């Protein structure tokens, strides 16, 4: 069985397990929808009170919000095994079993528990995107759609990269650290506003440190057909999401290094 078919099998098993409890799965999804949707309420209230900021109206800001949340929700759906890696695999010693199987450990972790409830965030972000499209004139031509899909792919890669890094840390710390939430949930929080509203030092962090701006801010500028108020050249805007893939590649380099020094907890 090739890797892709095996991954499909993992996903199917996970979905079938959740289908055993349809009511619980639906409720969890609804709960996740509500819990993540309140953020847009906050964004709306601020724009409603203060008016446009940094040259952006609420509708335009909602496009940033929607795309970032879509990216994160898909990454979250696909990388649960990495997020829970420290707690569920390293500390318990279950990772030994993963290593014994003649398949890449990363593949097995990616297929571990695809949680349907995470679709709640995807759903609310999609609703916000539709809402935003009706508030601001976005022409969804082929170029805009392609840019959006490409940006989402880059964003999924970036967030998956963060989760792989979180898992990698567990080789040293033996447990999953809540502190990586700073990068995942905190990253979503930061990237759901347009970059140019932030202070200069924070813009640099979000561009060169954790390249969230490259997967969210720049491509959305291209979708809205707006020049960058900060002066990035137009040709750069749709190219930027490639930074997400670079980040994921680097994360896997770190993951390899962690694997090489893995010692079982022996339980």
């Amino acid at each position: 069985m090739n890797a892709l078919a095996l991954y499909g099998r993992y996903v199917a098993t996970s979905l079938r397990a959740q289908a055993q409890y349809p009511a619980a799965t639906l409720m969890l999804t609804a709960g996740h929808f509500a819990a993540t949707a309140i953020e847009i309420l906050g964004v709306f209230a601020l724009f409603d009170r203060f008016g446009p900021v940094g040259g952006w109206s609420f509708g335009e800001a909602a496009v940033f919000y929607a795309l970032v949340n879509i990216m994160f929700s898909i990454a979250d759906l696909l990388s649960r095994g990495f997020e829970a890696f420290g707690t569920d695999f390293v500390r318990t010693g279950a990772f030994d079993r993963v290593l014994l199987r003649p398949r890449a450990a990363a593949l097995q972790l990616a297929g571990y528990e695809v949680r349907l409830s995470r679709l709640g965030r995807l759903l609310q972000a999609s609703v916000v995107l539709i809402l935003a499209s009706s508030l601001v004139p976005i022409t969804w031509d082929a170029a805009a759609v392609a840019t959006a899909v490409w940006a989402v792919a880059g964003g999924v890669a970036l967030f998956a990269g963060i989760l792989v890094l979180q898992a990698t840390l567990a080789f040293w710390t033996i447990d999953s650290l809540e502190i990586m939430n700073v990068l995942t949930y905190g990253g979503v929080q930061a990237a759901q506003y347009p970059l140019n509203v932030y202070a200069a030092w924070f813009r640099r962090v979000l561009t060169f440190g954790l390249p969230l701006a490259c997967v969210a801010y720049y491509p959305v500028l291209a979708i809205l057909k707006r020049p960058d108020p900060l002066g990035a050249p137009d040709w750069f805007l749709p190219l930027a999401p490639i930074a997400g893939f670079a980040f994921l590649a680097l994360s896997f380099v770190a993951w390899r290094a962690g694997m090489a020094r893995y010692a079982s907890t022996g339980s």
Partner: protein
Amino acid sequence: MQAASLHWARPYLAAFRARFQLMLQYRAAALAGFATQCWWGAIRILVFAAFYGVNAAAAPISLADAVTYVWLGQALLALQPWVADPEIGQAVRTGGVGYDRLRPLDAYGYWYARTLGWMLARALPRAALMLLAAGIVLPLVGLGDWALRPPSGVMAALLFVPAFVLMTALGAAVLMLANIVVAASLNERGVNAVLTPLVIVFSGSLLPLDFYPDALRPFLHVQPFAGLVDIPFRIYFANLKGGAALQGLALQAAWTLVLIGLGRLAMERMMRRLEMQGG
């Protein structure tokens, strides 16, 4: 004489102390939570600063007060009743709740004391760290504009003491209602899914309540969750003072009593129907 009069409270104090000391053991969790909250607060403040930069006149409170509001909120985050006490759900599922029924104690009071201990033990170490970081370190490194300020005057400080006590008592009363639903339904996920967003929005955790559209104010200012964040914090920086502050305290106290009353009723009904799980 005094010892005798306090005699009835001893088991509740013991329950509180045991839970408090147990939760204090999780130092790594507290440190990780603290770092997360620093970052969270910083993002909130950066966003506020952006909006104040374009149109400060539209804001109901000054930027300095908004910054203080954010840091106070991060410091006292663990006091917010976001999720039901996880031990209650466990006790009901394993049947451990049977032991609680055998204790010659008021069941509501016993759970309330334990929940209070759980909340405070998670909150106080983080609050101390946050006060140190946002209140002392930030001004020392020259970021005084972005720091947590001390209460605005002696009066505000004095009024904040009862406001803090009441916000804690109110938070525990809300959690008790959640705990009771958990005990009745054997599962905390559904309750938490409803409770968390409600509390975050209506307590003023997401945004100070006055930032929402003006038309909603009459409702937002009287609903029970306002006493969890919005009222005590506004007392802290004297946005509510004099009669308004006393009104705020009265609202906190009234809702605390109402929710405790409701909780007691619900608990009595729930306990009568409770079926023991497992052994």
